């Protein structure tokens, strides 16, 4: 192995690695696991239904209203996922953004991990190696949520009543503050990169805020669902023009 430009993983053709067949197999494997789980759960619900006073119709209504309620959010997730294909490739986006995780945590984890590797997520130094580190960190981070669920669910089942005695501040305000701090910090870290980065950040934030305001004002909750996708797309459009005006990395 040499330290020349040909050293492994120094190519910035991230998608060549991100769309490898094995990653596709792993992504489709997660689809399969969720399908199996869904089938087992539906059968279990059908068996339990009559004895707890839920008819087949009730169960169908539950299934259907869950499905219908998911249409808007699912399409919204699709748009967000499409905008991240260039960073993580299709299999990575399917599993990390579409399934297990969410755009916020996964992009956050990827940005922090590439930063730890001395690169910038999506920057000129975002190499195949940087992608591998980011994808690994996102996946292990997601695994931590699953692990916490596996450990805590049985514990909570046994101690449900005790939970109500925990200081409510601990369960609401503290994690809320942690989330705000994480994403404000990640966002502000984008500011020194260029004016175009700052434009994308501010435009994304402004559109999201506007969507939330309109959703409340016009009493249309679907506006909120679409807010994230719209914010990302309009943030990108704003960044495109800022870049064109010579305020960014000089791509356009």
């Amino acid at each position, binding site marked *: 192995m040499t330290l020349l430009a040909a050293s492994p993983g*120094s190519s910035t053709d991230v998608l060549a690695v991100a769309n*490898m067949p094995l*990653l596709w197999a*792993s*992504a489709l494997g*997660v*689809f399969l696991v*969720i399908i199996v*789980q869904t089938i*087992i759960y539906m059968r279990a*619900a059908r*068996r*339990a239904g009559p004895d707890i*006073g839920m008819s087949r119709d009730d169960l169908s*209504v*539950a*299934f*259907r209203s869950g499905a*219908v*309620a*998911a249409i808007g959010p*699912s*399409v919204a997730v699709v748009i967000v996922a499409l905008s991240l*294909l*260039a960073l993580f490739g299709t*299999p990575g986006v399917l*599993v990390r953004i*579409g*399934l*297990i995780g*969410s755009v*916020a945590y996964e*992009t956050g984890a990827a*940005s922090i991990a590439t930063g*730890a590797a001395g690169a910038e997520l*999506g920057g000129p130094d975002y190499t195949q190696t940087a992608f*591998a580190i980011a994808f*690994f960190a996102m996946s*292990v*981070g997601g695994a931590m949520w*699953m692990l916490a669920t596996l450990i*805590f669910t049985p514990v909570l089942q046994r101690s449900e009543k005790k939970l109500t005695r925990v200081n409510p501040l601990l369960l*609401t*305000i503290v994690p809320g503050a942690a989330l*705000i*701090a*994480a*994403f404000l*910090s990640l*966002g*502000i870290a984008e*500011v020194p990169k260029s004016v*175009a*980065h700052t434009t994308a950040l501010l435009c*994304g934030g402004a559109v999201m805020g506007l969507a939330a305001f309109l959703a409340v004002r016009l009493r249309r909750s679907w506006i909120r669902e679409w807010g994230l996708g719209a914010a990302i797309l309009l*943030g*990108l459009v704003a*960044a*495109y023009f800022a870049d064109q005006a010579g305020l960014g990395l000089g791509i*356009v």
Partner: protein
Amino acid sequence: MTTSPAPLTAMEQFGATTNRAGRLTMIAGLIVSLSGPLYLVLFADLGVTATALWTAFAAVAGTFFIIWLVEPVTYYPILGPAAMYQAFMIGNISNKLLPSAVVAQETLGVRAGTPKGSVTASMAICGAAVVHLVSLFIFVGVLGTWLLTLTPETVMDVVRSYVVPAVFGAVAVQAIISVRKLRPVLIALGVALVVQLVLVPAVAQLAFLATGICVIATIILTWVLRPRDRAKLENAAV
């Protein structure tokens, strides 16, 4: 709705089945989802070092470990044990699964936390999962991959370079709106500005820990500066 008391046996059986299957499928999902990235870092010869992975993981854990611990505890009362194993594998809990479960519970007039509430939440999440899997597979898996081949290189470069700040801007505002409390927002904003624009430029080695530092400092300050009087506290918890 009928109001017959729920015999424990049926619900116990539902609980046992979903517990066993839920845990097994979640462990399977965990392993399968890790197999891809593990292969990449172990066998794909990309020059990834163990040190780089540990550093990256430590930086991510520093930021999110509180959320890893708190989120399952927060969602448990609404979802119930069965739906927990669904929710944390299907993902997008707060923006998709939770609304689906709540809408179904409202439609049927059942309460969260009751046997009917739990079964309803599980069925609703099954419905949401089907819609979600199909739309992801078609629009991202198939059409998205095709779209990538059509997109001009310039547009791809713009997206790659600027999608990250666009996401963080939107998500930060989303987090602020969901908390709806001025105090933690001001604390977090002050801390983030100081850390990212004063501390990081001064001590460049801290850059990758910066967000972790922000999170921990904000949590400590929010706790220390919390409203002390009882009425305000209850108000704050709503």
